[in-house]
């Protein structure tokens, strides 16, 4: 059973987390995700969980680290500058192989930037903004409904892989209210956690640690992490396609931008242009193989982001020169309008410039 209701994206993140059994929230206010700690402060205690407003994002992520050590499902949320402050802590969580969920409701950057929408933290999320060879399993919702369900899923994946999972949302998703069907109960699987530090009653002592002073041993940890990431690549790739079958050009976009692109596909189809949409839902693991498939079927790709070109690198690595990859991006809280994107689509289909190293140049040049 499910109830159809209106919900804000930030609220959906809270409700999805609690439904998935999250019982610890540690966070610090920052726009545009303030509703998350605010809802958490009343809903978490009601669910029998813990809410702590930390003194900073650095403290938040380290509280999450400690709380995750107990094996309880826990999370923190923030927005761009706050997530930057968490990078050391995230690297520790990954290194200590702790399950935890981190939500980034991205805003405009760099620096203080503004509180409007952005997607320029893609690299930070998927390449690892912290030090060392770790990866965050990264999920990108495109609707309030997915804010709910992907947040819930994030907890399962975090537990399954003992790895931090990031939900990469944005200011629009966080702030918008839309219709959502909330299930009465969601399926979730919490594995046993014999490694948790809960007191050594009836067992040997447990240690949570990411310090391995002997290089051989630290390399072994790294190989173990890499093996885990390989498993994620095998099992956790998620994506969505819309009208790609007969498309000559496929838009590649995630999150809010993919919604805009869906509108563009419909607009383009009305003009008789065969355009489709490929939407990565997991950003790491990136859906490289299906994208390569599109490339091999001769489809042109046009990546649209609210950044100056970040995911476009993963798209290019996926297709490895097998098709042309164009890019169109806006930034600083500017949202590419469907008609702008459509112009770009027309250009590209007319053989207009398509970028081959867009990641290194200005969107203007690329989009010309």
């Amino acid at each position, binding site marked *: 059973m499910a109830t159809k209701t209106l919900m804000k994206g930030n609220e959906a993140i809270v409700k999805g987390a609690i439904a998935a059994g999250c019982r*610890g929230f540690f966070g610090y206010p920052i726009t545009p995700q303030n509703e998350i700690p605010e809802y958490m402060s009343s809903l978490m205690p009601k669910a029998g969980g813990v809410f702590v407003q930390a*003194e900073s994002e650095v403290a938040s992520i*380290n*509280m999450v*680290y400690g709380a995750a050590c*107990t094996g*309880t499902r826990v999370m923190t949320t923030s927005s761009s500058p706050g997530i930057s402050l968490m990078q050391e*802590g995230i690297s520790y969580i990954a290194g200590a192989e702790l399950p935890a969920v981190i939500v980034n409701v991205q805003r405009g950057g760099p620096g203080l930037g503004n509180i409007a929408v952005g997607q320029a933290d893609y690299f930070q999320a998927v390449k690892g903004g912290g030090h060392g060879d770790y990866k965050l399993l990264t999920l990108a919702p495109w609707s309030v409904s997915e804010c709910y369900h992907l947040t819930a899923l994030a907890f399962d994946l975090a537990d399954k892989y003992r790895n931090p999972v990031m939900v990469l949302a944005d200011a629009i998703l966080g702030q918008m209210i839309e219709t959502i069907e909330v299930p009465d109960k969601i399926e979730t699987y919490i594995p046993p956690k014999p490694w948790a530090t809960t007191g050594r009653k009836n067992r040997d*002592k447990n240690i949570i640690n990411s310090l391995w002073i002997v290089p051989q041993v630290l390399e072994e940890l790294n190989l173990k992490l890499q093996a885990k990431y390989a498993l994620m690549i095998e099992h956790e790739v998620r994506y969505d396609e819309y009208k790609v079958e007969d498309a000559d050009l496929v838009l590649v976009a995630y999150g809010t931008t993919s919604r805009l692109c869906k509108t563009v596909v419909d607009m383009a189809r009305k003009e008789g242009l065969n355009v489709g949409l490929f939407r990565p839902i997991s950003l790491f693991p990136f859906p490289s193989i299906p994208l390569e498939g599109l490339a091999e079927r001769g489809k042109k790709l046009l990546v649209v982001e609210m950044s100056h070109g970040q995911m476009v690198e993963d798209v290019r690595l996926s297709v490895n020169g097998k098709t042309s990859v164009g890019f169109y991006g806006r930034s600083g809280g500017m949202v590419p309008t469907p008609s702008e994107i459509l112009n770009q689509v027309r250009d590209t289909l007319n053989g207009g410039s398509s970028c081959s190293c867009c990641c290194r140049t200005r969107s203007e040049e690329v989009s010309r």
Partner: protein
Amino acid sequence: MTQKVFERPRALSENTFSYCAGCLHGVVHRLIAEVIDELDLMERTVGICPVGCSVFMYDYMECDMIEASHGRAPAVATGVKRILPGSFVFAYQGDGDLAAIGTAETIHSAARGENISVVFINNGTYGMTGGQMAPTTLVGAKTTTCPEGRDPAIAGYPIKVCELLSSLDGPSYIARVAPVSAGGLAKTKAAIKKAFQKQLDGKGFSLVEVLSNCPTQWNMSPIDSLKWIEETATKHYPLGEFVDR
């Protein structure tokens, strides 16, 4: 018939400490382990190690242990204790860890009255990284980053952690001790026990500042380092109980 009247506490592992000869980290570890034994806490203890010379403390204790990032032990402890209010949680921190990079976490866990216990090793230097100036380095003392001696005009004044925290309403127990004499050793253990008991009684944040040594970075013999604490350090860092409620 003779029997053992002093032996290695159960809560201490068999591993040899990696500390330098004469370093009091080992003494304080043992005292903590003794108190854990005496209060029968081992099965519900989660200890938090700092980044500093005592970074390997998880190898020395027999209870569950967590390695925190530099300075964040109180935040990590908060995370554990909030989720498991029935556990016993202590953090062990050096002066660089607690009073420099971890200042905010220290103050706020104290202000929140977080029901955890902190053992704070004040040796006036960054031992592990090679004897740099710590927030607790005394004026005039030479370190590798104040080779001419700490000059307040450049590096400011040492921070007295007990005094600083005493203005807060959160802490239940704040004390400073120096395990450098028979009496000092007894008082150190008593303070640690009292601090731990506060947590068991649900009274909130407790902290014991231990005036400790670093013969290596101080370039002193162990015995001289103890004398220096007794004669000089305690002048600037008076011993005693600052909060007890």
